[in-house]
């Protein structure tokens, strides 16, 4: 077998083998002419759980369709598992499990027969082990009791689970899941998250599109954000939050106190800026330059700017000083801490506040 790295031009970052999905200037204009995906450069590292975010109509499903060879890109190229798509679909797709734009089933077949049908369409699937693999997949998604029921009679969540089972019929190197928890109950969502973690632990790369940000935040190691067909940013989830927070570092300081006026005065003295008062809460920007006093701890943790809970962080020493100053000045403090930026903040920051779908 030729090495995948030898096939393509030299990569500036890492060898292509490290990337499970890699696109170059991937572009799609549907017949209307408007660009649904515009010059997308996506890089999904092997072994990651990759969250693919974007508002409605931002081109997530379109990208997934191109990656799966269902539609032809207007321009640019895509490589999946190191091979060009859609050209190498016959070699690549058996190693990819996919859930695209929700499940689609044969209503007149039972859940189990649906899986038989999809498995029969896979040229690499062994018919001798089919019954066993179908049984295992059905159990894995918690549908064993309903597998004999006609799919027409399935609820949305049951259909979604069956669609997932179809993606899990064979061991996969890559799972592409387009909004996998759509329609699931909270238990179902939790099970899917557990399933995703379990699969990732087995070495499967999971590419996951979703609007549910805390879901992405909970399971994903990496994320990319799309808006209007363009890639806004991609990277590790921690980096993404940090980038958006930027100089804010830990995020906003929040003090809950009945003595808001005093608190504002003390905090201002301590160098906190942009102070705002809402009812009994005072929020403000921490100084980007750590204040000189009480900051002699060199044990900076370089990896995660999000670990504001860590007592070893130098900033928390400073926070403690701030708190002490408040208390010292007679401010009664009910609650004290920093609000870390959630992925939702990142998302809204990057894609804009507007609710309307881009035309």
């Amino acid at each position: 077998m030729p090495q995948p790295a030898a096939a393509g031009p030299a990569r500036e970052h890492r060898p292509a083998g490290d990337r499970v999905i890699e696109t170059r200037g991937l572009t799609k204009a549907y017949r209307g002419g408007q660009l649904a995906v515009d010059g997308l450069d996506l890089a999904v590292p092997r072994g990651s759980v990759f969250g693919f975010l974007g508002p409605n109509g931002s081109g997530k499903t379109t990208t997934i369709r191109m990656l799966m060879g269902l539609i032809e890109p207007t321009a640019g190229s895509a490589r999946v598992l190191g091979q060009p798509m859609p050209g190498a679909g016959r070699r690549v797709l058996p190693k990819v499990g996919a859930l695209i734009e929700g499940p689609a089933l044969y209503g007149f077949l039972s859940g189990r027969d649906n899986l038989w049908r999809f498995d029969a369409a896979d040229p690499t699937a062994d018919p001798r082990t089919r019954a066993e693999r179908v049984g295992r997949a059905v159990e894995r998604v918690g549908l064993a009791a309903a597998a004999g029921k006609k799919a027409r009679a399935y609820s949305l969540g049951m259909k979604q689970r069956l669609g997932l089972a179809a993606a899990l019929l064979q061991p996969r190197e890559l799972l592409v899941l387009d909004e996998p928890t759509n329609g699931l109950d909270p238990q179902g969502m939790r099970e899917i998250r557990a399933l995703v973690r379990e699969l990732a632990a087995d070495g499967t790369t999971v590419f996951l599109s979703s609007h549910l940000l805390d879901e992405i935040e909970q399971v994903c190691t990496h994320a990319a954000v799309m808006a209007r067909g363009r890639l806004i940013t991609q990277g590790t989830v921690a980096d993404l939050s940090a980038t958006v927070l930027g100089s804010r570092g830990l995020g906003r300081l929040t003090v809950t106190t009945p003595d808001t006026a005093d608190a504002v005065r003390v905090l201002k003295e301590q160098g906190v800026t942009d102070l705002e008062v809402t009812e009994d809460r005072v929020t403000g920007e921490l100084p980007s330059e750590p204040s000189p006093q009480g900051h002699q701890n060199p044990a900076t943790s370089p990896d995660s700017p999000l670990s504001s809970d860590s007592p070893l962080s130098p900033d928390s020493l400073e926070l403690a000083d701030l708190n002490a100053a408040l208390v010292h000045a007679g401010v009664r403090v009910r609650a004290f801490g920093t609000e870390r930026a959630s992925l939702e903040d990142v998302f809204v920051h990057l894609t804009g506040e507007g609710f309307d779908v881009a035309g």
Partner: protein
Amino acid sequence: MSQADGVLRRRPLWSLGLLRSEIGMTFRRWRTLALLAVLAGVPVLVGIAVKIETGDGGSAGGGGGEGGPAFLSQITNNGLFLVFTSLAMTLPFFLPMSIGVIAGDSIAGEATAGTLRYLLVAPAGRTRLLLVKYATTMTFCLVGTLVVALSALLTGAVLFPLGDVTLLSGTSVSFGEGLLRALAIACVVALSLIGVAAVGLFISTLTTSGIAAMATTVGLLITVQILDTIPQLDAIQPYLFPHYWLSFADLLRDPVYWDQLQKNLGLQALYAVVFGSAAWARFTTRDITA
């Protein structure tokens, strides 16, 4: 990745597995069974009608289906003629209509349900899926024709005497040979449907609505049948797929007249090639967004 290539080798007989899945699925659908029930019902109705008519003492004949007067008058003497009559009556419309439903729905129905994208990422392969769909439609042609023939044979055997067969050319052959000729006729009738199946498959690749594809195919069938009867259009009629359909009666002559039979099969092959290629060209390049 090289280590996975060994494990994930495609299986040589996999296409047959897909074909079996497709055929099994088609014949499990209520719609297919309903179509077959209608096809099976036609000979029973014709047989009973002939029986009632002749029960009054008058002889059957005179009227009858387009292709059938010559056969219809013979039914009371020999139940085997109900097979020929029934095929002649179902070939112009019932059989091709049911083929139109099956062929029209083949790709478009999967697109409507959204299952097409999952078959393609399985990956079934577009060319292979198209071939499997066409083969399944052809299987339905054969099964549909045989259902008509068998139903007619059973009805004929129950309602009328069986015996030596007097051919259209006047000579008489044994019942056994008559049965063989009936089987040959059923096969020719099934092959006559190749053209309409290919047209239906092509239409099916054009749309994502199964209903629209079925309706278009059946509408086209009716239009072509009408065109085939308009005398002013005799210049194009030899190229219309139903034009030589009733030539199967030539198998009931001694010696068999091959001329029209060959023209029919040649025309069907032409339709299969032209519309099959068009379907392939369309389906292998189409964006699957449904």
